[in-house]
């Protein structure tokens, strides 16, 4: 474990940003593991700045109408639907 330990509060904050609930055991376990992993990531400091070539070109297709999934197929995996729409939780 590094001296620069990751606090349980930081783990909870990141989990909140990522919309993942964690129980207390998970928070403690991740805090320890993240300290090790982030310490290892620190070695990226030794990487020099590198010129990145950007000789890539976008590939565009003509903007033409074509068939896509019908709504019945698109809704088939949804836990809840209503009147041909996905139904989600309250936005509040």
């Amino acid at each position, binding site marked *: 474990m590094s001296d620069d330990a990751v606090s349980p509060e930081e783990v909870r904050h990141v989990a909140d940003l990522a919309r993942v609930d964690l129980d207390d055991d998970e928070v403690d376990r*991740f805090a320890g593991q993240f300290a090790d992993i982030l310490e290892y990531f620190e070695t990226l400091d030794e990487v020099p700045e590198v010129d990145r070539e950007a000789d890539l070109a976008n590939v565009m297709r003509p903007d033409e109408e074509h068939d896509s999934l019908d709504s019945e197929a698109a809704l088939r995996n949804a836990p809840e639907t209503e009147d041909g729409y996905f139904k989600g*939780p309250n936005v509040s």
Partner: protein
Amino acid sequence: MSEDIFITEERIEGADDGPLAGKTVAVKDNISTEGVRTTCGSKMLEEYVPPYDATVVARLKEAGATIVGKANMDEFGMGTTTETSYFGETDNPAAPGHVPGGSSGGSAAAVAAGEADLALGSDTGGSVRCPAAFCGVVGIKPTYGLVSRYGLVAYGNSLEQIGPFGETVEDAAALLDVIAGSDERDATTHDAGDDANYADAATGDVDGLQIGIPTELLEGADEGVVETFWDAIDELEDKGASYHEVSLPSVEHAVEAYYVIAMSEASSNLARFDGVRYGHSGGYDGNWNETFAKAREEGFGDEVKRRILLGTYALSAGYHDKYYKKAQDARAWVKQDFDEALSEADVLASPTMPVPPFELGESLDDPLKLYLADANTVPVNLADLPAISVPAGETDGLPVGLQLVGPAFGEERLIRAASALA
């Protein structure tokens, strides 16, 4: 089946005729199959049934192949052992009691056990080559853009490619012939594979082949693995190849660069799983953020949560330049190193994995230790290059793979060289 190779066993018949008529294929369970559930090894997608086929699946069917099942895998491709699957571990048919490697462990095990003639996996940081090495079969990670990713459930989309497994190089190459080529549904595909004939390249002719051996990829590797590797190089020398050592200083930073980039991309790609349009739903009432967070807590396993959180951290305000930007610098550096080394060698060779297969359950508790086992495979994904893992022999009865890396769209060269060994 004792090895738990498949998550779903279901036959999908292809066309009557075609280059793969009469061949059976196992398909990794993160590749969409219309009407057959595609779980990604996750509780999140336990009941998800895709309404369309991935491009590679459509091409398999057109080629006359019979799909025999959806193969087990580390959850969302995140692992090196196939043990992070929600559906349980897969035993290694070539080394019982050991992991089959990952994340495409079920695919490699299906070929090793004779449950399928061929298999498809996906390789984000070694997920085709590692299980190929651990199960004693052949696996190819194509050049980025050679094979369509349409219908592949994304994990690290700037890194991953779908790739074939076979018992021989020629078999794997014949499957690559079917899946390679441009696809209007994946704007990153290239036309290099449109008229290729990879199977015909499997001549085993290595006369005059110049092999570069990156010294950094042998350092720290298991002694038995290194010995087996050199035996295979000797065999290639006997057939007319020669080798010289090369140095790739950038690869010392490849593992951390790979994990920062892959986790960052994962945190974004997996944001779509909220239990509304598909996937596990908490079914809770109330605020949508809280509802999503509960569904994701229940639907994702430990390794997936770990990577989503670390990726979110690496991209968050104040840390982006420190981690993500430096990782992109490292990625460019790795590319330059490979280009330079490949200007003086036809192919680069190393052990595929620095270690023989772990025992089942041996390494789950230490994520960092597992990440480090990817040292020889991840640089190839960072550089967008093609690579092949071919059986090199055994150490203490455990399979060892030899990895060959070639220039972009140099699959034929890799197939020709590797076919001298299997």
